[in-house]
C-alpha cells in the first residue's frame, strides 16, 4: 500500500453563529491557511474532495458555492460526499492509493446556526417509521446514555467528569467554542444534562494529503496514515446494542489500530455517554490521551467535526506530541456509522 500522510491541517474558530458570513466566506480563510502551510496553490493539488450537507445549508447543491472558495479554474479533479469531511478524506486517501494523484485537498464545513439542528437531524431517520415522530438527536443520545447507566457502564457523575475534562482541555485550544469548564446544568433529556451535550455552532476544516516523498517535502513530520476503515450498523435503534459499537471496533481492527497501542486518540463523541462507548470499543486504556483538543463537547461543527478529529490527531503528530494516534469520526444517530484512522509520526518501515 502506498504511503500517504496528512501534511497540513487548518480550522476556523468554531462559533455559536457565523450569521455574518456565507459558507464560502467561512471556508475561504481555512483553505488559504491550509494551502499556505504547505506552500501549495489550488493548481498544484491533484485531487480535491469535500463533505457537507444540503440540509444544514437549507438549499440544494450547496457545495457548488463552496467550490468558488477553492478557485476551480483551470478545472480541477474534484468530488464531494454528503457526509462528514472525514469520509471526504477517506475518498481522497483512496484516490492517492491508486497512484493517480500525489496530493489532495480535503475540506468540510457546516453551519448549524440558521436552524434547529436537533430538529434538522431528525430528517436523517427512517422516513416511514421514525422521522414522522421527530425524535431529536439529544433524545436518541439520551436513550443510549440511559442504556449505559442501566448496564452499569457509567453514571451521571462519570459523565459529568468527561464533560469537565473535555472543556478544561479546550482551554488550550484557541479554536474551541466552549473553553473552560461549564456547569452541568439541568436535564435536557434525562439523563443527559446541558453539560453532556455538544455546543451548537458553525465551523470549517481542511487538510492536505500527500504521498511518499511529496509528503516529506511538504511537512517536517508528516502524519502517516497507517490504516483507515469505516463501517456502518443497522439503522433501527431497536436492533442495535446501544451500549456497544461493533462498527467502531471493526473499523479500528481493519485500520490496524489494535496491532500496537496508540498514545493519543481524538474521538468524535458529541455526547459524554458516547465517549464511554467508544473508549471500550476501541480498547483505549487510561494511558491514552483522549481528546486533548476538547473534542466535540467543546466544538461540534456538524459535517466538519469528524474531519477536525483527524486533523487534531495529525497536528499532534506534526508537533511531536504523538507518535501513534487514533482518530475517529461518526455519523448517524447513536454512533450508527464510524470511521477510524491510525496516524504515525515515524518513517514507514516496510
Amino acid at each position, binding site marked *: 500500500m502506498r504511503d500517504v500522510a496528512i501534511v497540513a491541517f487548518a480550522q476556523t474558530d468554531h462559533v455559536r453563529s457565523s450569521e455574518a458570513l456565507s459558507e464560502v466566506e467561512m471556508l475561504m480563510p481555512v483553505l488559504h491557511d491550509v494551502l499556505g502551510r504547505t506552500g501549495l496553490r489550488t493548481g498544484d493539488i491533484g485531487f480535491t474532495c469535500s463533505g457537507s450537507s*444540503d440540509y444544514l445549508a437549507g438549499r*440544494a447543491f450547496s457545495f457548488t458555492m463552496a467550490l468558488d472558495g477553492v478557485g*476551480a479554474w483551470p478545472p480541477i479533479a474534484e*468530488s464531494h460526499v454528503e457526509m462528514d469531511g472525514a469520509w471526504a478524506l477517506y475518498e481522497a486517501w*483512496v484516490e492517492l492509493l491508486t*497512484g493517480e494523484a500525489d496530493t489532495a485537498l480535503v475540506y468540510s464545513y457546516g453551519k448549524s446556526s440558521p436552524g434547529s439542528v436537533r430538529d434538522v437531524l431528525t430528517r*436523517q431517520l427512517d422516513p416511514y417509521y421514525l422521522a414522522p415522530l421527530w425524535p431529536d438527536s439529544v433524545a436518541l443520545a439520551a436513550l443510549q446514555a440511559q442504556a449505559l447507566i442501566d448496564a452499569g457502564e457509567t453514571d451521571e457523575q462519570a459523565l459529568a467528569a468527561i464533560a469537565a475534562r473535555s472543556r478544561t482541555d479546550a482551554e488550550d485550544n484557541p479554536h474551541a467554542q466552549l473553553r473552560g469548564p461549564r456547569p452541568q446544568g439541568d436535564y435536557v433529556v434525562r439523563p443527559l444534562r446541558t453539560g453532556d451535550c455538544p455546543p451548537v455552532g458553525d465551523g470549517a476544516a481542511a487538510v492536505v494529503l500527500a504521498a511518499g516523498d511529496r509528503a516529506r517535502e511538504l511537512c517536517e513530520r508528516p502524519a502517516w496514515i497507517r490504516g483507515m476503515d469505516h*463501517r456502518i450498523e443497522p439503522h433501527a435503534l431497536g436492533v442495535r446494542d446501544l451500549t456497544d459499537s*461493533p462498527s467502531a471496533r471493526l473499523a479500528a481492527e481493519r485500520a490496524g489500530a489494535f496491532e500496537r497501542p496508540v498514545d493519543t486518540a481524538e474521538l468524535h463523541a458529541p455526547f459524554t455517554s458516547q465517549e464511554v462507548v467508544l473508549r471500550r470499543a476501541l480498547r483505549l486504556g487510561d494511558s491514552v490521551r483522549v481528546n486533548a483538543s476538547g473534542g466535540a463537547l467543546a466544538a461540534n461543527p456538524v459535517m466538519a467535526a469528524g474531519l477536525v478529529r483527524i486533523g487534531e490527531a495529525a497536528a499532534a503528530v506534526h508537533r511531536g506530541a504523538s507518535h501513534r494516534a487514533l482518530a475517529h469520526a461518526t455519523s*448517524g444517530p447513536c454512533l450508527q456509522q464510524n470511521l477510524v484512522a491510525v496516524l504515525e509520526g515515524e518513517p514507514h518501515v516496510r
Partner: protein
Amino acid sequence: MSAREPVAVVGVGQTKHVAARRDVSIAGLVREAARRALDDAGLGWADVDAVVIGKAPDFFEGVMMPELYLADALGAVGKPMLRVHTAGSVGGSTALVAANLVAARVHRTVLTLAFEKQSESNAMWGLSLPIPFQQPLLAGAGGFFAPHVRAYMRRSGAPDTVGSLVAYKDRRNALKNPYAHLHEHDITLEKVQSSPMLWDPIRYSETCPSSDGACAMVLTDRAGASRAPHPPAWVHGGAMRSEPTLFAGKDFVSPQAGKDCAADVYRRAGIADPRREIDAVEMYVPFSWYEPMWLENLGFAAEGEGWKLTESGVTELDGDLPVNPSGGVLSTNPIGASGMIRFAEAALQVRGLAGAHQVDGARKALGHAYGGGSQFFSMWLVGSEPPAT
C-alpha cells in the same frame, strides 16, 4: 509500486423506470436494482465488501443522508458505506469512487448504486433555488440551460430542427429498452416538432421526464471477473473534472472542464481518435440540443460541426457512432441515477448484453455525465477486453 488493479463490471441492474413507483419504499426501490445487479454477477450480499451510493440533492426525497436508513436494505451492515453527491454527474462519480476502491486494492468486490425517487417531491422546484441564493427568474433546469442552447444555435448556425431529430431518435431507441421510462409507441417527428414550447427553444418532447428509478453495478477485480457468469466490461479509464458555476469567460456551450475530463479519459484509455475508436456513447442529454453540443465538447466533432453528425444520422442506433442507444436521459431521468445509467448502459454495450438496443460489435463505449451549471463532469471508457497493463 504495483500498477492499479484492473476493474471489471460484472453486474448491472436497473429498475423499470417510471414516473412514480408508489408500490415500493425508497429502500424497496434501491434493493430491487441491487438484487438484479448481484443476480447478473452471480453473487450474493455476502460477496460484497463495500457499498458506494450516490444521489442528487437530499431535498428530492426529503430524507437527509438517506444512506444511513438504506444501510440495511443494501446489505451494508458491518461494511463500509460511502455516499457521493456531485449534482447531476453524481451517478458517474459514484461509479468512479467505487472503481477506485477496487483499483487501489482496498476492496475486491464493490456494489455501487444510484437512485432518485422523484415522485416524493417536485424536482423542477427543487432545482429552482430560493431567494437569496438566486434571482426568481428561473423555473427548473430548462430555464438555466435554454439560453446556452440558443448560444450554441447562433454560434454553430445549426438548423432549428436538429433538437427534434435528437428527441425523435432517443424516444424511438427507448422503445427497444425495457427499462426506459417513456415508451411512446406513437411517436413521430411531427409530434416532437409540434409539442408545446417550454423554455424557448426547448420543446416539451425535447425535455427529459421526471422518473423514479435506481441503477446498480457490481465492480470487481481480475479474480472476480474470471469467476463471473457473464462477460465483464473492463474500465479502461475514468475521470472527474469541476469548474465554478459562473465566472467571467466561462464557455457554457462547451465548458473547459468537459474537454479536460474527456482528454484525461482518452489518455488513460489510450484513445487517440475518439470518433473512430469508440463504438457507442451514452451521454447525458437532458435537453435534446445537448447531443450536438457534447459531441463537440467530447471531441467527436470539430467545434460547430456536432449538429451535422446528428442531422446525417451518424448518431442513430444503426449509425456510425450510436449515441444513447438506451434512449438516454431524454427517455429516463431519475436524476441521481441518470449518470450511473449512462455508465451502466456503456458497460452493457461492450458486454454484448444490451438486448434490442445492442450496437453490433461494440468493443469500446463511453459513459458520460454532467451536472450543476455545466460544471461537474464524470466519464468512463469501458471495453470488452481487459486494459493493457
